[in-house]
């Protein structure tokens, strides 16, 4: 695919370098990808993940909050800037994901429902949103590296966590520092996919400035493939952070979580926090100085 076979390259007297390509049969391969494979890959990834999440929810249900004597006491898990970083990235991601999926599925699902004119207007705004919200998304990725990289370096505790099934598949609650192995996977997934989407996205925001026609085609293929897988993965992240686990949403909502929940899921991190705040109570007080 996309080999430079059969491409006819010549010379033109106009200053548009890409006009010098007389014929590029690779366009047919790109068409085959975009119209033949991508809708199936995208539908399989997104719907497959949704089905898996439904199946998990109906067989296993929510992971409940255990009530202990510490229930009701709050501990700050994410400070205001961390939450801002999360929601900046998350809100732009959702718009980017929906407008991105619109490029693939819009004409198949939405256009028959609302008609060509309304759909074209919507897609036009969707394109603007996709192009402009890419920048806050990339800023969010950079902020995430700054605030969370140090807590996401894999260590020995993660091995034990994975062996115990993360308390997700099994019933145990293995030890974890601030982020358990599962959360670290999400972090690194967001980093790798986010950076790959950013790089390919920037190449497409400045078309033909970095590469030629075949390079643009490959860039679009990479962007689309990683995009649909990224969306599927984030669906799982949204599930576990809201519906899947009781008490988890508070961490990114109010920034404060139930101490009982924290001790259950991040026992080593709670110990660290308690050691840090031995001189001044961080636990249970509102407006405390972030533990950084």
């Amino acid at each position: 695919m996309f080999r430079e076979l059969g491409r006819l390259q010549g010379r033109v007297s106009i200053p548009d370098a890409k006009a010098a390509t007389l014929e590029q049969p690779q366009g047919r391969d790109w068409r085959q990808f975009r119209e033949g494979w991508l809708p199936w890959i995208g539908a399989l990834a997104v719907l497959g993940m949704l089905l898996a999440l439904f199946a998990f929810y109906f067989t296993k249900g929510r992971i409940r909050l255990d009530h202990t004597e510490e229930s009701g006491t709050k501990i700050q898990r994410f400070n205001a800037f961390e939450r801002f970083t999360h929601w900046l990235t998350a809100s732009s991601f959702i718009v980017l994901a929906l407008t991105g999926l619109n490029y693939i599925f819009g004409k198949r699902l939405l256009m028959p429902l609302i008609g060509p004119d309304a759909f074209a207007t919507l897609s036009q705004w969707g394109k603007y949103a996709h192009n402009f919200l890419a920048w806050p998304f990339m800023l969010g990725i950079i902020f995430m590296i700054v605030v969370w990289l140090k807590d996401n370096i894999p260590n020995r505790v993660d091995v034990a966590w994975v062996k115990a099934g993360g308390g997700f598949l099994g019933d145990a609650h293995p030890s974890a520092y601030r982020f358990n192995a599962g959360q670290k996977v999400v972090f690194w997934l967001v980093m790798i996919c986010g950076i790959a989407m950013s790089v390919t996205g920037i190449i497409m925001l400045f078309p033909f400035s970095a590469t030629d026609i075949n390079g643009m085609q490959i860039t679009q293929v990479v962007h689309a493939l990683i995009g649909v897988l990224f969306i599927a993965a984030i669906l799982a992240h949204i599930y576990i952070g809201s519906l899947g686990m009781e008490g988890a949403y508070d961490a990114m909502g109010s920034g404060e979580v139930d101490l009982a929940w924290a001790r259950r899921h991040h026992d080593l991190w709670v110990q660290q926090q308690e050691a840090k705040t031995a001189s001044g109570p961080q636990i249970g007080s509102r407006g405390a100085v972030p533990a950084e």
Partner: protein
Amino acid sequence: MEQDKKGVDRRKFFGALGGASGVAVAAAVSPLTATVAQAYDPGSAETKTRYRESEHVKAFYRTNGYETLKK
């Protein structure tokens, strides 16, 4: 006990929601198989034939062919 009962209700609520969205997704996906990329149809007036073999066009064909040089 009362709290447990509430929890069950909520679970049922999400179950119903899940079932409903499953149906919605299935309904939304069904045209995926049916629709092959089709250009839109702007109407018969726009797609009607415009080409006609007028004298002008015939002159073009005549002057471009060798056969006319003999005449």
